[in-house]
Structure formats: structure tokens, C-alpha cells
């Protein structure tokens, strides 16, 4: 017996408000249907890399929101900068930002230290987030939640 004729079906069945976010982010609604993300590690303690790997796990299933992880900054709409840069990583970071196609956004994810590099197009800043916080922030950037 089908249940949706009686109970009703929302369009996005798996996308109920599971990931509310309190982060202050600038929304970019041109990416509402799909967003491609490139993550760059600039000197975090590997913890944030693990959180990004955890975000790609089955529990979060980011593909249903149209969130994809790209293999190159040239394919990406959003750059996630993990950690605060070591001296050697500042130049590669700037080069990576130059490679991003416009329009793009930068989401800064930090641990303990604060980054003050005056990067362009920063849309948000998270501190010590869990994967659900990162997902919530991305959805907020996409104007999905």
C-alpha cells in the first residue's frame, strides 16, 4: 500500500531540515541546484582533512543535495580552505584562488588559530566544525535550508 497518496509527499523527501546552521554566511543562490567543492589543506593538523573525509561518508550522502567534491580548483564553485596557512602554503593558496572560475566563493574552516590573509570572495568562516556543521554551512550558502 502506497503511503504518499494519503500522507502527501514533499518534493525533496530526504532533504528535511536535518542540518540547520547558525553560521553567518553570504549566500550564493546561483549554486542552489548543485555546487562543486574543492578543498585545500594549507596547514591544519589533519583533523579537518578527516572531517572532510567523514563528510563524504554514507551518513551524510551529500550528493542528494547536489554537493560534489571536485578534483581540481578549475572545476569548483566553492573553495574550502582548511586550517591557517603555514609560510610555504600562502603562495600555493593564492595560485589556487587565481585558478577558480568566476563566480566563486571561499569558505574558511579553521582550528585554533585565526587566519588574516584578506582572501577575496570569502562567504563564510567556521571554527572547529563537525561534518554536520560544514554541511549546514554549505547548504546555507546554497540557500537550501
Amino acid at each position: 500500500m502506497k503511503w504518499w497518496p494519503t500522507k502527501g509527499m514533499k518534493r525533496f523527501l530526504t532533504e528535511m531540515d536535518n542540518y540547520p546552521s547558525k553560521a553567518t554566511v553570504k549566500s550564493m543562490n546561483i549554486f542552489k541546484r548543485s555546487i562543486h567543492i574543492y578543498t585545500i589543506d594549507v596547514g591544519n593538523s589533519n583533523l579537518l582533512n578527516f572531517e572532510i573525509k567523514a563528510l563524504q561518508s554514507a551518513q551524510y550522502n551529500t550528493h542528494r543535495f547536489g554537493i560534489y567534491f571536485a578534483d581540481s580548483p578549475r572545476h569548483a564553485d566553492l573553495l574550502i580552505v582548511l586550517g591557517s596557512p603555514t609560510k610555504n602554503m600562502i603562495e600555493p593558496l593564492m595560485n589556487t584562488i587565481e585558478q577558480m572560475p568566476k563566480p566563486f566563493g571561499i569558505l574558511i574552516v579553521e582550528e585554533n588559530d585565526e587566519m588574516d590573509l584578506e582572501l577575496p570572495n570569502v562567504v563564510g568562516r567556521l571554527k572547529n566544525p563537525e561534518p554536520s556543521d560544514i554541511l549546514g554551512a554549505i547548504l546555507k550558502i546554497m540557500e537550501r535550508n
Partner: protein
Amino acid sequence: MKILLGVFRKDINYYVVQDNGIVLTETDPADTYLPNYASVKLRDMMINSDQSVKDGDGVFDFRYGPVTSGVGEAGIYHLYTYGERILSVSIDLSYKHRNIQNRMVGLDLKSGLKMAESICGNFAFSHSLAFSKAVESAIGVNVDSKSQRLRIIALELERIYNHLYVIYQLAQTASQKVLTSHLSYLFEESLRLNKKISGSRYLKNFNDIGGIKNFDEKTLQDLKTDVQKIVNEFKDLYEWALESGNFLDRLYSTAILKSSDAMSLGITGPTLRASGIREDLRYNDPAYENLNIPIKEEGDALSRMEVRAEEIFESQRIIFNQIENFDAEINAETTEKGFGYCESPSGTMVYKIDLESQNISDVYIATPSLFAFKGIANSLVGNIFTDFQFAVESFGVNFADAAL
């Protein structure tokens, strides 16, 4: 069987040596570990910078990193290839260098512990444990039995999620989509379990100098069922994975590390045990009972995966054993003054700390990843580029741990 892990200088050179489950300092080096001496002493941020086969007609420097999806972390692999074959490898760690050893000097103990935890996020508890053991032996604090047992449990929890991660990465590299999804699920579950126990997904701020305080013992029974669930699910997956021919084909005889090379490079942990050497710091710790730590002979990526998988089962047994005997007294292992070490998921973690009126006046840290990168460079020679990812993932190390 001595393994040289570090050299630090006071008035003369002191050598940090691992010998049959104990880490100690020596003043005169024996010949057995001299091949390792120069690189350990210099602590160069460039591994194998003086390789002889760099130049020549047709030799191409394949620079991999620091911004690539293949490596993922900030560091560079220089693969010197001739055609497809890798002739030599040098690895640049300097992109992750945060100057931690110097920044730690002068800190008080609390912020020192916090900094030790933030050296490498996925070995946070090992760093924290080695640091606090070093401080405890320097100021002469006794740790109660319950805290010691909790520390063992947390260390094994860290081992479980790190090993799950390594096997998850190996499955992903071999494009085993179903296995990858299942393992990613278990990996995230194990992180959530950490949070349930310690309040942090990476067991941070859990351990403290002098023992673990504010722990609710009622959660231990839940822990037992949760660990059982994760390990049972993993057991099924692992048995299926070992039936998949095209998964095993990618791992078998890939990136072989000989036991003699492993010893002289200073490699410890599961990588050394996968090369057929029975060496583990847990053997010498009276808190562990009836250890049955797996050892494999081949030294290839498959052996390293097998050792890690079987260590997950062993970790479950250790955790159960510690929970059952939670109220029983145990004798602490005694170490040299200012000396603390533990068996992290990837090998021996050593801290040597000198204190001056409750502040850190000198610190020396030896981490397993630095040596394992030498192992990666050594084992890749003669393989082809498609084996690269398997070699890197099977060692289970990272730049954050190697470049302090």
C-alpha cells in the same frame, strides 16, 4: 633489535632507541642503527634529497602536490620516473612545518598538552598520552588504575578509527565502491562513538596530566555494545573483501618494504609488524594481558592491510578486557625521567620533556610518520605510478605528524 628513533643534544648526543618493547636513551650508538643516524640527527624537511638517480636522459621529475586531490595534504612527492617505473622518490615536508617543537618551549603544562594534541588531529590521543606520561614521570605523579585503563581504552579506540580509515582509503583507491561506502559508514560511526565517550570526535581534551577526570563509568557498558557492533560489521566486510580478487590483486606485492630496510629506517608500528618483526610497545606494558598482536611476513600493501584489520579485532578484545577488569589495580610501567611514549596507531610516539618550575624548558618529539615517509620512498622504488596511492595509503601516515 634496536631501532633508532631520535637524537637530541644536551652536553653530548643522546640517542632515543626502541629495543624489544622499551624506549630508552643511550649515549653511545651501536653499529646496528647507524644507517639511520644522519637523517634522524638533521631532521631535514626534505626526505631523500640526495638521491643519486635524479638526473639522466629521460628521467622525469613527477611533482605531486601540494595542491592536488591525490595527496590531499600539504606536501610534495617528487617521483623520479623513467617511463612508468619510479626510480627514486623524494618527499618535501616543509609545507606542513609549523615549528611546534620550538613553540612548545616556555609553555605551561596545560597549554603544552593542548599544543601536543593539535600537532596531528588523528593521533591526538597518542600525542596527549605520550606528553602526559613524560610530564608525569618528570614531576613524579602517580596515575590511578582507572585512569590508566581508560587511557588504554581510548588509545585502542583511536587505533580502531585510524585503521578503519586506512582500509577505507585503500578500498577507495582500488575503486571498490560498495566496500568503500560501508567502510566510510563505519569510520563515521567510530568517530561518533569517540564523541559519545569523550565529548570529542578525536578524543581531544579527554586525557589530562595526572589521569582522566570527570568520567562517567556508566557509559562503559554502552561502549562495549557499540564497539562490538562496529567490529562485527567490519569483520563481515573484511571477510568479503578478502574474497574479492581484483581488490587483492592491487594490494598483493605492491610497495614491498623489506624487514632489514624497515629496521634501519626506524619504522615502527603495524608497518614493521607487516614486515615480519615482532615489536610493539604494548608487549612490555603490564597493563595488557594475553596480547595476540598480528604479524605478517610479506611486507607489501596487503600485509599492512591485514595487520591493521586484525589489530582492530585485537583492539576490541583489549577494550573488553579492560572494561571487565576496570576495578582491578594495575602496576604502571616505569620510564626514564621526563620520558613518555606510547604505541600510536602508526607506531612509536616519544616525548622527552625537561621542566623548569612547571614550564617546559626543552622538548624532543619523535613521531612515527617521519620514518614511515622514508619507508614510502624506499618501498616505491621499482613500482609504477599507479601503485603510488596504495603505497601512501597503506602506511597510514600524514604530513601533519611528520613535519612538526
